[in-house]
Every structure is written in structure tokens, then in C-alpha cells.
């Protein structure tokens, strides 16, 4: 969990160019971290790449906050990379 959390946060900081302190569990990508809908699509692609998973669109739509992403990846990743 901690490793996934660390990596997810790192990706968010890099993709959305935000301060690490802003990336709290409840932070919403679109409402709090300045992302638009296309930024979120790209963010999900980065998660897929980093954790070697495929996130179907219907699941991706439900990933709205930092916590959503960490929980989803923790449940579905094959150990991460």
C-alpha cells in the first residue's frame, strides 16, 4: 500500500505539476488539483503504464480522487513495478 501510494502521488505531482502537499487522499483531480477531463485521461494512462495494468473506461470514470486511485491500483495491480 505504502509503495503504491508513494508512486501514485509521484505520478500526480509530475503529471499535474502540483505541490506534493496538495496531493492529500481526499483531493479531487478536477476540483482541487487543476486537472481538466483530458488531464485525467492522461493521468490514468500513466497509472496503467507505471503499474502494468489496464483500467477500463468504466472504472476510470470512478477514479476522481487521490484515494480512489490508490485503492483501485492497490486492488488491481499485479504487485506494481
Amino acid at each position: 500500500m505504502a509503495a503504491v501510494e508513494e508512486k501514485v502521488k509521484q505520478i500526480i505531482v509530475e503529471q499535474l505539476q502540483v505541490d506534493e502537499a496538495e496531493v492529500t487522499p481526499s483531493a479531487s483531480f478536477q476540483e482541487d488539483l487543476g486537472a481538466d477531463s483530458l488531464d485525467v485521461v492522461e493521468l490514468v494512462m500513466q497509472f496503467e503504464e507505471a503499474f502494468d495494468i489496464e483500467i477500463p473506461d468504466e472504472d476510470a470514470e470512478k477514479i476522481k480522487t487521490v484515494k480512489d486511485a490508490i485503492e483501485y491500483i492497490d486492488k488491481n495491480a499485479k504487485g506494481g513495478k
Partner: protein
Amino acid sequence: MQRRVVVTGLGLVCAVGNTAPEIWSKLLAGKSGMAPITAFDTTGFSVTFAAEVKNFDPLDFVDKKESRKMARFIHLALGATHEAMENSGLKITDQNATRVGVHIGSGIGGFDIIEREHSAMLAGGPRKISPFFIPAAIINLAAGQVSIRYGAKGPNEATATACTTSAHSIGDAYRIIERGDADVMIAGGSEAAITPMGIGGFAAMRALSTRNDDPEHACRPFDKDRDGFVCGEGAGILILEELEHAKARGAKIVAEIIGYGMSADAFHITGMPEDGDGCFRAMENALKSANLRPEQIDYVNAHATSTPLGDATESKAMQRLFGEHATSHKLLVSSTKSMTGHLLGGAGGLEAGITIMALMNQIVPPTANLDNVDPECKLNYIANHPQNAKLDYALSNSFGFGGTNGSLVFRRWEE
């Protein structure tokens, strides 16, 4: 009463410099911007050099997150627009925003992004295509990004007429102001096609110089040893403004745009008729719209790209239009592409800027590498050294694939 249109700002980026003053000093010194390509590995390419923009950092103009969503031609357009806007002193406010428009085109658009995303798709399937692929690559997004960044809410357009793109952008923007649809237009073009498909594509047409062992002397318009154009990149942006609007805010006026002519060859996809009839009619239409006689033009910044056919054809068209004024060598002609390379869709913007600096400084920049004038080219091409001259009216030519032509006429500004 006819609305007059003046130029109140210049922003230029190309291989010889990243600002208008830097470019001007390099042109007067006859400096070439051509060198081996650094953007990609040229192994296997028949052409291995180009006129690349150097030391340009998009992060000087846009933050990192946004910069990733733009092809290089958009970065270059933002860089040139930044200089032009600073130069003009124009502030876009709630009061004037809807009267300020943008007209910035590109001949090619985002080949860099198209190639990258196509490779990603071939390697990983369609799910690997970035959601920013389309808005990063399409041609009108330079105009779109400029409007978003500066809050310009007036007319927003982009031309894509190959190497005539930015002459058309400036000419059409001039008409938009003249008609009263806007008071200010941020106008010009941008290009960044030094990519494997860009260079490979032009090389496949045998359109490029292959003087790989001597890039600096490869582009030699009107010279008998010319062997093709050299691909350049960059952007040229002008701030066009209605005269009274410019005066009311105390803007520094650098020139007036007084003529614009267009034509089509209706002949061939890439070639032009030997008599240069299309070029002739574009220049003739520009003079007509400016109400000038041919002998009133002091300087022509020629399209002349250093192709064997093109330079001779343009010379013949000028000879036909300007007659004795041209053959007596009173008309001064130069091709600054000899140093900047060919900016394709950005050429008209860059060269409009250079033409204006010639009027401002009363100096004609030279045609570099002109050692042995082709006997087919019979005019005064200002070989290798700049020339001081009394310049009141100057014309800038652009001709593009598809047989599309445009000419702009500028007048020296005096209060």
C-alpha cells in the same frame, strides 16, 4: 472613410536568432543558421542538415504541464507572440478583448506530435494515444492557444496554405481590421517541420539542397549552383492595428500595411508555370490594392527559396511587372532565406517582419552565398553585403505548393 492598418509590434524566431533585433543584426552580418540536424538521428536520410531554432526553451513562455500539450510550432508561435505583444505595449482588457483577434497559421502543424503518437499506437495499440494528441497537433491551435493565453476574444482563424500561409494570415487579418471586424489582430505563422517525416518527405520530392558537407553555404538563391531549399523553422508574428486605435493609446508605429494581393497558378501541385504568371498576378494585385505604380516599390523581399526553377521564375515575374525599374537594377531584391532557411508556413510572417525592419532602418539585408549569379536571374539581388538605401515602399512575396500566391506591401512609417 477607409480604415488604415499599421504594425505596432514584431515578434520573430528563426535559426539565426530568437528575437527580431537579434535576427536583424545577424542578417546584416550575413550569418547563416544552417547546421547538421540535432532534432533526430539522420542516419539513412539523403539530407542531414537544416536551419533549426537554437536555445529556445518553451518554459520561458508556458508552464511545464501546458507545454506538453503543444507541438513545437505552437511553442514557437507563443515565443514570437510574447515578443510582439511586449513590443506593442498592448494590454488586452475587458474593454477591448472582443476587438482583438488572432490569425496564426501553419503549413504543416504538429508533425512532431503526430509522429510520436503514431509510434505509440503502433507499439502499444490505440489505448496509448494521448488525449492531447489532436489539440497538440492541429494547425489552428497556435491561434487558439494565443487567444487563451492573452484573452483575445475577437476573430480567431488559421490559414494552411503551405508556404504562403503567413502572408495570407497577415493579409487576411489586415482586411479584417479594414472591414471593421476587429481593431487589433495578432497575425502571422509558425512552423516546426524538422522531423523525420518532414525532412524525409521534402527530401523524397528532391526539393531540398543536399549540400550536406557544407550547410552554411547550401542555401544560395539566384546563384547558378543552387540545388534546393533548406528546411527552416520558427515563427513570425505582427501586431496589426487600426491607425486611430494605435494613435489613441500612444503606440509606437513601425510601418503601415497598404497592399495585399493573392492569386492561384491553377497549374500543378508543386511546380509553377515557367513565366511565373501566378507570382506576377499576386504582385500586380498587391500593387493595385496599394494604389502604387511598380516603380514606386523600392525593395522586394523575394520568396526565392534556392530551387533551380523557383528563383528564376520569380525573377522573370518581377522583370515583367517592374520592367526597366527592375532591369536597370534600381529595384532592390533579396532573399533572406539564404540565412534563415525556409520557414514554410512561417516564412511570410518572418519575412514581413524583416521587410518592415528594412523600412525602419533604411537598409536592405543581403542575399547570402550569391557568388555567381545565374544568367537567368537578371535583377539586383544585393549579393552578400547589406546596402543602405532610401526605402519608402517594400513588397514581400510568398508562393506555396498547390500554386497559391500572396504578396504584401508595407510603407515606411513617418508621423
